[in-house]
Structures are given as structure tokens and as C-alpha cells.
């Protein structure tokens, strides 16, 4: 274990993974590289958000880790086992974007069926089924046919299936699709419980605000490449300092603010890009030294959504 309590053995280890679709047998059709030479490691006990625009390769990456696709190049290990191996699949739970079940089965029957596929005994199947029904608060719907379930209910049931037998790795592809606000809050509660149990959660989601409240790390994917990975220092540290000035305050030159930069200036307001909260006293002191009549300051840290947009712009340019 490391100092912060995370396991040292990577739960996911991707080495130089490339995934190309199409191309045809004779290579007549151009192949599309959904993932391009990705190397990535994830330790235990974290919730990692996969962020990227449509077609960035998020679902492909999750599918490769889950063993549903074969990498064109490179290797993937889950908990030290090659992806798609039985040991790897024993270690993971997977929630697809649009989960499908046999419509004539009840939720309880679905869970018992999947618990049986884990090779559990009859008693363990019953115990695990009731545990996840209770954890996902699905008891009320346990004996209803899945065919009548809403998208949100299917999503909850899929999460219940994925949590059977306490996997070390949980892969969630757009898990909040179809969930109402209460469902999203429930999801957050469950995932935090899962993390506290030491498991690793990988979430792909378009709802960036939701990820921000859940994840401890991000992976930004763009056109099949990892643009940024790890605890996002820039997300945590960069921001805008809004400075309110008295009318008639003298004009502020940008060089006074170095190394920070001026984003916006009016008679009564300045917006300054700072690299963190520690820059604030220096900036305020410089402004006062330059004769600015400061009446108030407010620091607005950059959120994941802004970072995502910035990274996409940077990549596009």
C-alpha cells in the first residue's frame, strides 16, 4: 500500500494500446483508429472519470478493459490478469450504456442468473441477490418483469448486476443515462460506498458536473489519445480572480500582475487568470501597489467543464 492508502498493484494497466476499426481484409477501406497508442495505469480505491467528446474512444477503452473488444496492438491487464481472461472477468463488474435483459425475467431472477454465472453456491446466490437489491434499493421492484422497466430502472439493475460478488473494478459507461436527480444522488452514494470498500471505479460520462462531484482523477480523451491524465492539477489550481474596484481607479498594466495575466478590465472590475489560491495575496498586493482602489476579491476556480473545453480547443488548434 502507498502512503495515501491506495494499492500499489495497478488495477488496470494498458500498454501502448491501439484499437482500429474497419480497414477490410485487403486494407481497401480506411481504418479508423478509435484509440491510438494509449498507455495508462490505475491503482486501487479511486474513481476515475473518462472525459472526452463523442468519438473520443471512451466506450472503446471501457470495452477493451472489459474484454469485449480485442486491441489491435498493445496489452491490457486487469488486476494483473490479461483482459478477457476468466480471472480478469472475475475481478470486474461492467455496466453498459444501454443495458439489456431478458424481458420475461424479474429483477430478482436476473440477479440470481448473473450470480449463478459467478459460480456461487445456492445460498450465496440468494444472499448476494438480496444484498445488491437492498444496496440499490430495488426490493420494491424485485419481482416485476424487467420488460416493464424504465431506462433508469434498467440502469440501476445493471449496476446491481455489476456489483454482484464485490468486484475490484467497476466499469460504468454513461451510468446516469435515464436516471432522475434522485437516482443520480443514489448513484453517487453507491459509488462512494464502492470506493470506500477499496474497489476502483471507472466512469465514462458526458455529464461533467456529475463527474466532478464523484471522481478523484480524470482521463481526458481526444481522438483516441489521452490528452491529460491523473489528478488534474490545472482543474484544482487554475482559476479566475475577480477584483472589484472603486470607480475612478487607475488603469492597471498587465506587467504588474506577472506571472498572472489579465483576462478582462473595466472601470470597476478586473478578471485575472491565476494559477492557484497562493497567487491571490501577491496579486492583490501588486494591485494596491499600482494604486488600484480594491473593494473586494473573489476567486473562481476552473471546473472540469472549463478544462474540458479548454483542452478540446487546444487540441483543435
Amino acid at each position, binding site marked *: 500500500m502507498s502512503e495515501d492508502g491506495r494499492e500499489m498493484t495497478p488495477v488496470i494497466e494498458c500498454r501502448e494500446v491501439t484499437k482500429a476499426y474497419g480497414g477490410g481484409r485487403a486494407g481497401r477501406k480506411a481504418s479508423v483508429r478509435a484509440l491510438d497508442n494509449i498507455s495508462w495505469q490505475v491503482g486501487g480505491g479511486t474513481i476515475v472519470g473518462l472525459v472526452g467528446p463523442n468519438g473520443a474512444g471512451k*466506450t472503446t477503452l471501457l*470495452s477493451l478493459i*472489459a*474484454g*469485449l*473488444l*480485442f486491441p489491435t496492438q498493445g496489452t491490457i491487464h486487469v488486476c494483473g490478469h490479461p483482459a478477457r481472461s*476468466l480471472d480478469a*472477468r*472475475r475481478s*470486474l*463488474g*461492467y455496466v*453498459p*450504456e*444501454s*443495458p*439489456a*435483459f*431478458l424481458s*420475461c*425475467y424479474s429483477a430478482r431472477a436476473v440477479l*440470481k*442468473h*448473473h450470480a*449463478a*454465472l*459467478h*459460480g*456461487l*453456491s*445456492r445460498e450465496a*446466490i440468494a444472499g448476494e441477490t438480496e444484498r445488491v437489491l437492498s444496496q440499490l434499493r430495488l426490493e420494491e421492484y424485485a419481482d416485476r418483469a424487467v420488460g416493464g422497466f424504465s431506462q433508469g430502472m434498467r440502469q440501476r439493475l*445493471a449496476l446491481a*448486476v455489476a456489483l454482484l460478488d464485490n468486484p475490484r473494478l467497476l466499469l460504468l*459507461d454513461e451510468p446516469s443515462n435515464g436516471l432522475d436527480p434522485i437516482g443520480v444522488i443514489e448513484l453517487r452514494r453507491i459509488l462512494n460506498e464502492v470506493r470506500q470498500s477499496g474497489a476502483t471505479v471507472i466512469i465514462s460520462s458526458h455529464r461533467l458536473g456529475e463527474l466532478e462531484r464523484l471522481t478523484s482523477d480524470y482521463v481526458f480523451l481526444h481522438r483516441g489519445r489521452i490528452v491529460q491524465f491523473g489528478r488534474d492539477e490545472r482543474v484544482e489550481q487554475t482559476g479566475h480572480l475577480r477584483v472589484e474596484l472603486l470607480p475612478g481607479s487607475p488603469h492597471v498594466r498587465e506587467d504588474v500582475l506577472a506571472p498572472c495575466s489579465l483576462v478582462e478590465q473595466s472601470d470597476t472590475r478586473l478578471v485575472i487568470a491565476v494559477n492557484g489560491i497562493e497567487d491571490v495575496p501577491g496579486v492583490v498586493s501588486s494591485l494596491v501597489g499600482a494604486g488600484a482602489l480594491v473593494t473586494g476579491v473573489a476567486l473562481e476556480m476552473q471546473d472540469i467543464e472549463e478544462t474540458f473545453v479548454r483542452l478540446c480547443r487546444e487540441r483543435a488548434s
Partner: protein
Amino acid sequence: MKAYAMISETFLRKSSFRLVHLGWLLAYPLIFLMPSLPETWQWGGLMFAWSGCLLPIVLSAGIFGDDIASGRIRLLATEPIHLSELYIYRFLGLSLQAAAHLLAVAALILLLHGLTGRGSLDRFASWILASWLIFNTWAALSTSVSVVVSRDHNSMTLVLATIIVFFPLYMLLLFFQDSMVTQVYHAIVRYGCPPVDILAGLGLGKYSLAEGGANVAHSLALTVLYGAAGIVLLKNREFKYAAD
């Protein structure tokens, strides 16, 4: 429990299967009631054609294709179960359904024959065996086709393929019986496709005990071959996101 879950799923996956079994059984008393039934009518032959050859096409419809089309396969394929096990248990589910169905058919025929005395029960036990063997061969072939064909199109694919394969053979045998092409084509169909005529011969008692044993072995070997091909296809298949 794993085997039970998968085997029972092959019957429970569509609520219509209960009606299919009942409908198939209901056909027998209806035929018993036909006024123009010949005295030499073979009940075993009917069971072979109706329950042995046609029933597996219906029961195996979409056995993997439905899961692939709906995306459910993505949940199954991430569970800690070998894909070969998945295939084998599903095939066993079909085979056990066939065994139970054929036993019910046999009991029904014996009862109706006892009541009416119509038709013939010659070599009935051989017909039951032949029916179960041909069911298994068709079921394995259909299950393997279902690995690569989406939804329940595997059944229609098999029906069309059978017409495409057997119709030219019928024409060749009719008009060019002595041609080398006909003989080669006939041999390929006879030994490579589900052995309908060979097992029908077994039911009719055309073969000696040794020949009958060889025919049973041939049928089982074909079932294993079709199954092995399906397992290889399943293991090498990617399960992409898009569900249709």
C-alpha cells in the same frame, strides 16, 4: 448452479416456447384424426421430421443473435464464465428440451395408437433415437450460425441454405444421376450436412447394427464439429457497443 441457470434460460428466454412445445405436440393427435391416414403410416417418421428436423429451427431462433442484437451479450461476456461454457450450456438446454419433448411425443403416440390402432409403430425406439440425434445436429448448426447472424435470422438462414443446397441436389439426382459432379455433390451433402437421410435410414432399419452404430457416431461427430465451429466463432468475436 451455473449450468442450471444457463440451461433453463434456453427454455425461459421466450415465453412463446411453452406454446411452441404445446403446438408441436398438438399436431400429433390432429394427424391421428385425419380420415385418409394410410395403414403403413410411420409415426416414428413423422416424429423425426416434425419434432426432429423442424423443432430445433424454432427453439434455437436467436439463441445468441437475440443477445447480440440487444446488447445483452455485453453483460454475459463480462461474467466469469468461459464462452465455450456459455455455448455448451445453451446447446445442452436445447438438447434436454428435445429429450423431454420427444419422450412426451412418444408417450402421446403410444397412447393414441393404443386407443385407435392407426398407423405403424415399427422400430419406434430407433425413430426416437434418430429424432433426438437429428435434433441435436440441427440445433448445433443453428446455434453456431446464431453466433454470427444477428437476432433470430439464424433460423431463416438455415431454411434458405437448406433449400439452396438440397434443391440443386434433387435436380442433379433427377437428371444427371450418374454424373461425377452429382456424386461428389451428393457425398458432400450426405456427409457434411445434417444427416437427414442417414438417420431416416436408421429409423427405417436399413442398416446393420455396425452400420447403425457408425451412423450414430457420424451424427454425433457432426454435432461436435458444428459446435466446435460455433465455440471458435464465439471466442473470436468482438462484442461492439452498437445494439440494433
